[in-house]
């Protein structure tokens, strides 16, 4: 493993994705700011915007950083340089993940701040938001695995669509849980065992998906 090569590849990809990344960061922050606007309808629109920006960022960044390299045949150029498959795979996974995490974290962090500084906000809603954002991250990791295994835009979109359907089911299921729905109105921040279990499950899905993605990438025999 060549740490310097990984760093160079990582920075190159981060630079290549700078404009979409900037767009999603701004879009994400604007949607978070929209939650501050008065009215329940505005709050709902801001919530939908946040989810939309996160999902769009995921599919777009996977497309720009991963699938495009195969379709545009730039991978042959990169792999002709002194980088091993391990260097390439680690750099690629890291940059796709970090690029997604930049708007994701910016949104979650700014929401957390707003929850604590806005007088009308209830801190108890934070576990719900964290679970929702972890679900979106897990969905992104599953899209990433699909893109790596199939190298297909079509299959990746299928997973995105399935993820959207599951997200709606997930949010509804959470809302149906009295332990969780009552949190949204709570003035105190608590993390009940059910929330902890759900979050642990989401983290496991994320780690397993990333592990499979790396393993599959390293077992690839032909790169072009």
């Amino acid at each position, binding site marked *: 493993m*060549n740490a310097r*090569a990984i760093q*160079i590849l990582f920075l*190159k990809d981060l*630079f*290549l994705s700078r404009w979409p990344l900037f767009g999603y960061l701004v879009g994400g922050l604007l949607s978070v700011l929209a939650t501050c606007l008065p009215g329940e309808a505005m709050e709902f629109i801001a919530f939908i915007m946040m989810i939309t920006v996160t999902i769009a960022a995921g599919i777009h960044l996977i497309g720009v950083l991963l699938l495009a390299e195969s379709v*545009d*045949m*730039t991978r*042959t*150029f990169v*792999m*002709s*340089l*002194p*980088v*091993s*498959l391990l*260097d390439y795979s680690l750099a690629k996974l890291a940059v796709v993940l970090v690029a997604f995490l930049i708007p994701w974290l910016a949104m979650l962090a700014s929401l957390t701040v707003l929850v604590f500084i806005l007088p009308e906000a209830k801190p108890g809603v934070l576990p719900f938001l964290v679970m929702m954002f972890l679900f979106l991250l897990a969905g992104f990791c599953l899209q990433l695995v699909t893109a790596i295994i199939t190298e297909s835009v079509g299959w990746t979109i299928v997973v995105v669509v399935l993820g959207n359907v599951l997200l709606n089911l997930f949010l509804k299921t959470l809302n149906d849980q009295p332990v969780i729905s009552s949190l949204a109105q709570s003035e105190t921040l608590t993390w009940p065992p059910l929330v902890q279990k759900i979050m642990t499950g989401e983290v496991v899905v994320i780690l397993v998906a990333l592990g499979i993605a790396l393993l599959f990438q390293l077992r690839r*025999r*032909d*790169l*072009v």
Partner: protein
Amino acid sequence: MSAVLDQPEPATIAASLRGIAKSYSHFQLHDVNLEFTTGTVNGLIGPNGAGKSTIMRILMGLVQPDRGAVAVLGQRISSSEAIAKQEVGYFSEDMRLYKAETLAFHMQFVRSLYPGWDEAYARQLLDRFGLIAQQKVKGLSQGQRVKALLLLILARRPKLLILDEPTNGLDPVAKQEVLSELMQTVQDETRTIIYSSHHTQDVEQICDTITFIDRGRVIASDNRDEFLHRWRRFRLQAPGDWVAPEIAGLRKESVFGNLRVMTIDRYQPQVEDWLQSSGATLESSAALSLEEIFVAAVTRGREECHQ
């Protein structure tokens, strides 16, 4: 066989393929054994889909063979591809740069991975190839794209250049510029080029050794001059009942009335005497162009495969 495969390559061998096989659903590469001597320009000639690109990708570690061993600059490519690639420049006609970025971006990116990057030479090549560093890749013509890729390869001063159809789609002037630059590169006797093309003229112009490949098989491999010397075509007049003498390496014989055209591999000067003394009148004895040799070798190879 494995004992042979495990032997280290001598320093005079820049790259080697031993017993290489690779299967795809519609194409197989069969038992390829090739050695490329340090300081030589080696041409791989074959029709489209013959297996040239697959061989080059295997040399670069981009494709893993099903069987056999590959060594590049003394490194086993399967286990240490990154180390070997430090000294190798690879060009493929289907290789693309990032179209939204400039050539300067690519130069900076490649320079960061190569401590031996020669910036002065890169600037010279920019000038010589008429390229503009700040130009975006999507604005480059096909010829400029090839030159940009070659600049990124040559400025690293690689010991081994693996060039897959680098002159495809180039106009005659651009092609000559590229070939001239490659010839300059191998004036340094430690540098080796493996060059594939289906344009025999390009290969004939720059290569020391030539390998013909067809349908996934190496059908002939030799020194260029030896190839050109040993293939010959005779036109002779002979009566209908003429019995041709036994000539080793007779590859093709066509009969048009009393006119016979014989193409032979393994030419020896005595062949003319044998033909004349057999009662035939020799009209001409001519060396074949590399293209004619290639066609004859491919045709013969395919016939042998069918038999």
